[in-house]
């Protein structure tokens, strides 16, 4: 077993890379997925802006994206990564496929959270003369906030998992470290240390998510 400071030194940069990838992937996945989820909810049957055509198209797109295995999606999206970031390897490049893989997941999370909101509340809001925009942002989103927080927690944890996979094909971060040292050089201690860091990360995010969800529910 290598000395502890050496190990910490080895882990520091990949940990930061993972955090960087996860943070920005979550951000972009949310920017894409959140509106998508809202559109799904309002256009579905019985929704406040029911539109069968829009719903079926978006629903199909989300399903197709979600059924791609991530590794395949990443390879398929290489050209897009090159277009956006200029390269297909490195942490910044892997943010593109990560965000696109997670966006439909976010959309489903948002959709199911908003669908849980009691229809009676929407009805009361409609009876008061609320516009669709008011119903979305003053009723659906605030009422679903605890579920949204828990759903986003799940999204972040999923992205951590995917980011490790991205690392394996040149994405950097803890996954990359684990593969390079643990798999190619048989340095099991580095592999274990990388896994432990990931576990701690997941635990902290889940804990923070639970605490936040509790705070926003009344």
């Amino acid at each position: 077993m290598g000395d502890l400071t050496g190990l910490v030194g080895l882990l520091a940069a990949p940990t930061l890379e993972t955090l960087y990838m996860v943070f920005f992937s979550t951000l972009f996945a949310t920017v894409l997925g959140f509106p998508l989820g809202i559109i799904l909810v309002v256009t579905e049957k019985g929704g406040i802006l029911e539109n069968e055509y829009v719903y079926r198209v978006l629903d199909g797109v989300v399903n197709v994206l979600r059924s791609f295995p991530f590794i395949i999606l990443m390879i398929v999206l290489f050209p897009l990564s090159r277009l956006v970031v200029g390269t297909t390897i490195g942490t910044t490049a892997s943010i593109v496929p990560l965000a696109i893989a997670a966006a439909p997941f976010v959309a489903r999370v948002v959709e199911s959270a908003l669908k849980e909101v009691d229809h009676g509340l929407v009805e009361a809001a409609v009876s008061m003369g609320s516009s669709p925009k008011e119903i979305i942002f003053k009723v659906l989103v605030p009422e679903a906030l605890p579920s949204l927080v828990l759903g986003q927690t799940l999204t972040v944890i999923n992205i951590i998992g995917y980011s490790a996979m991205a690392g394996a094909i040149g994405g950097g971060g803890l996954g990359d470290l684990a593969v390079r040292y643990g798999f190619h050089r048989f340095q099991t201690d580095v592999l274990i240390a990388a896994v432990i860091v990931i576990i701690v990360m997941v635990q902290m995010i889940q804990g923070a998510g639970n605490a936040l969800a509790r705070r926003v529910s009344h």
Partner: protein
Amino acid sequence: MIEIKNVVKTFNSGGKGLEALKGISLHIKPGEIFGIIGLSGAGKSTLLRTINRLGEPDSGEIRLGGTDVTKLAPVELRNLRKKVGMIFQHFNLLSSRTVSGNVAFALEVGKWPKRDIPRRVAEMLELVGLSDKADSYPSELSGGQKQRVGIARALANKPSVLLSDEATSALDPKTTQSILALLEDINRKMGITVVLVTHEMGVIRQICHRVAVLEAGRVVEQGRVRDIFMKPRSRTARELLSHLPRMSYDADKLPKEPGKPVVSFSFNGGTADQPIISRAIKTTGAEINILSGEIDNLPASKVGSLTVQLSGTQEEIAGALSYIRSQNVETEVIWNG
């Protein structure tokens, strides 16, 4: 005020059409409390919801102070809804907002200037007696308190009509009383028209002025509450009335003595609290033995019914009956032998 003409509504459930409203016409006067009663599935909620178009009627007209609601474009409809408050059986309060926040919601939707909102919220909470709960969340309130918030919210935009769908059906009898008293008070003070859906005759009796009885999508009876209480014509009205605690004669237990007819009297409005019986006794010499009776307190009137046994000479009995009839009391001879 509210004119409902030939409203038809069909639901498509599982390929089959279900005609929930089969041509309903009603006229609701400004400032009155109008009850809509019927058994479960009669179409009460469906009818009420067509008034603010929470449900679209297939055909028919719904005029609200002159405008045909069925013809409004989305934006006009939203503006109209701000002037038609609605309260619900399950309150439908936003759990993410405090009591104040829930009332403020209506004002935000009503586009009140931000700085006027707190004052109006305080005013409304005072009206419903919940000023001390302003910062509580709905989860911290009792059912009655939640409904008070619902009422405050529904009235915040100064509507001219309040729609109530089973607003007291989830509440215990005592809380029901207090909510009904509040609605009556608001109706009297603000002159707001109330359309109230219920399946409980007790609610109708307590606060409604007029009532329509619905049976399978049709109005089978409508009129003044006291008339329907005194002479229910439809099966539904009779059935619903039978659920009210009510004293009435029991045919088997009537005393059947020759020459002593048993008669039932129905009083309405002004006659219920006049000493008609004692006057009849004094002026004719007949004896009147009261077997059972009840007096209902309705808003604006009292109605009562009395079952009595008359005795005396033929002339005394006939004189007493004709005197009582002359006082606008309906009489019905139940037994005479």
